């Protein structure tokens, strides 16, 4: 088991957003987390990447308890998050942004880094074309690619994607999901949060459903797609 979350609670001030959730992610899996607005998906992601402290429970990554570890140290352990919305550095060029991805790597001057760069460029040719463009002037979709590419440059073992398809045009959405599969095929474990539940469930090995801060259901992705209750609530199929 790569990631094991037990009874995790997270609070914003006096408001508890997560009431003790438990999630497991095995190495090599794609796991998706779906739920309504404000259910606590992003909060979960932030807790895993260390941007929000846990008020209860534990997060164990690869056998090590990282519950109280600083965010930047988690990156060193191999957790990389592509945050919700625009998480790019708008004033840096595309190349500089990608280089930021290697910030915590020990081998950031080695050929391995160059190989990773090639891999990202292979996944997103558009980034290669625009490598000198200032990231802030890129379109929403390109920024999203950059966010994902940058997370990959960290050579993570666990990739956290928070709503990678938000605000993207329909055509790009399809692309993003095939890219996630591709990334996973290269051996990276992926935990993805999506509103586009249909697509997410169809690529995921397993899925968790989050409602108002608690896990209400979990299971195989394909099974969930067929679940009528889930269909009604999250797939918009009446």
């Amino acid at each position, binding site marked *: 088991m790569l990631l094991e979350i037990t009874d995790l609670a997270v609070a914003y001030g006096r*408001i*508890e*957003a997560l*009431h003790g959730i438990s999630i497991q992610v095995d190495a090599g899996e794609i796991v998706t987390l*779906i*739920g*309504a*607005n*404000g*259910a*606590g998906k992003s909060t979960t992601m932030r807790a895993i990447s260390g941007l929000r402290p846990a008020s209860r429970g534990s997060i164990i990554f690869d056998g090590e308890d990282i519950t109280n570890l600083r965010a930047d140290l988690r990156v060193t352990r191999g957790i990389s998050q592509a945050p919700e*919305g625009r998480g790019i550095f708008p004033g840096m060029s595309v190349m500089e942004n990608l280089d930021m991805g290697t910030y915590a790597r020990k081998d950031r001057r080695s050929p391995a880094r160059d190989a990773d760069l090639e891999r990202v460029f292979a996944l997103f040719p*558009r980034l290669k074309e625009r490598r000198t463009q200032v990231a802030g*002037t*890129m*379109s*929403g*979709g*390109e920024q999203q690619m950059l966010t994902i590419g940058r997370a990959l440059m960290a050579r993570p073992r666990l990739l956290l994607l928070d*709503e990678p398809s*938000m*605000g*993207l*045009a*329909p*055509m*790009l959405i*399809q*692309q993003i999901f*095939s890219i996630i599969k591709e990334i996973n095929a290269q051996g990276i474990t992926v935990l993805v949060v999506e*509103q586009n*539940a*249909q697509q997410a469930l169809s690529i995921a090995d397993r899925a968790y459903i989050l*409602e*108002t*801060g608690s896990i209400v259901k979990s299971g195989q992705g394909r099974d969930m797609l067929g679940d009528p209750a889930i269909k*009604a*609530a*999250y*797939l*918009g*199929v*009446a």
Partner: protein
Amino acid sequence: MSTPDHPELKPDAVEAPDSILPDAPPPSIDESVDLPEPEAHVSVGEKLLEMRNITLRFGGVTALDGVDFAINRGEILGLIGPNGAGKTTCFNVMTGVYQPTDGTVWFDGKKLGRRKKYQITRLGIARTFQNIRLFPEMSALENVMVGADARHKTSVPGAVFRLSPRHFREEREGRERAMELLRFVGIADLAHAAARNLPYGYQRRLEIARALATEPTLLCLDEPAAGFNPAEKAELMDLIRAIRDQGYTVLLIEHDMRLVMGVTDRIVVLEFGKKIAEGTPAEVRDNPAVIAAYLGVPEGEPTDVA
């Protein structure tokens, strides 16, 4: 509460996505609220806003390139296009955030020209934002009252010394109207909660209420469904329809095709700052240019990224 035509809005149909306020009711639209009629009473179908040959350049980037389209009174017009096509920029031109490099915007028979942003709002264009921009520390009610204040006239000395009865009348009316609107979008129970503490979906509703409070003729919604799940989107569709039914004209930017196709009367498609198509949802859906640029092939090979 909810009317029979909108079964999705029954309280038990949706889970309340709310962990802060466990006993808050799920969002529901109270259509018994009678919104004040928009100011101009001209028959439906006449042109309300016209973008005439609008061009906008930022340095080297041409964000809008001779865009021409019109919004008719009383319709819901969809504005779609790939990322970076210039949709939000269109909103920004209409609301005075940007001055077009070339071309004119006509609204309600007047040129917008170099009017200030707040003057345009007072003319009757209101909007919401792609990234929510509420006044986070103010309560929901106050947020809406700020919108309503756009129509109020109490001067600063008047407010300091409280000499004129108008001040009291306006305060009372503004409050009542704001409550009404909150009821309309279904969050009246949260009127006194700070906007920042509202769940995401409610914040979007609050933005719509605030925009409506300015008594606009034209309401512009920028990706109101971003980050909503399909069930929530369906609910939003009903809200938008209800707004139109009250006599407002609506301009909608949205990437969710089910929502766009389901709710709009007409659609304008932009790509690279140019209009590439315009027509009914059905026409646009089948337009090969739109499919190539935007919709993509239903299930299949990756197309070039816009």
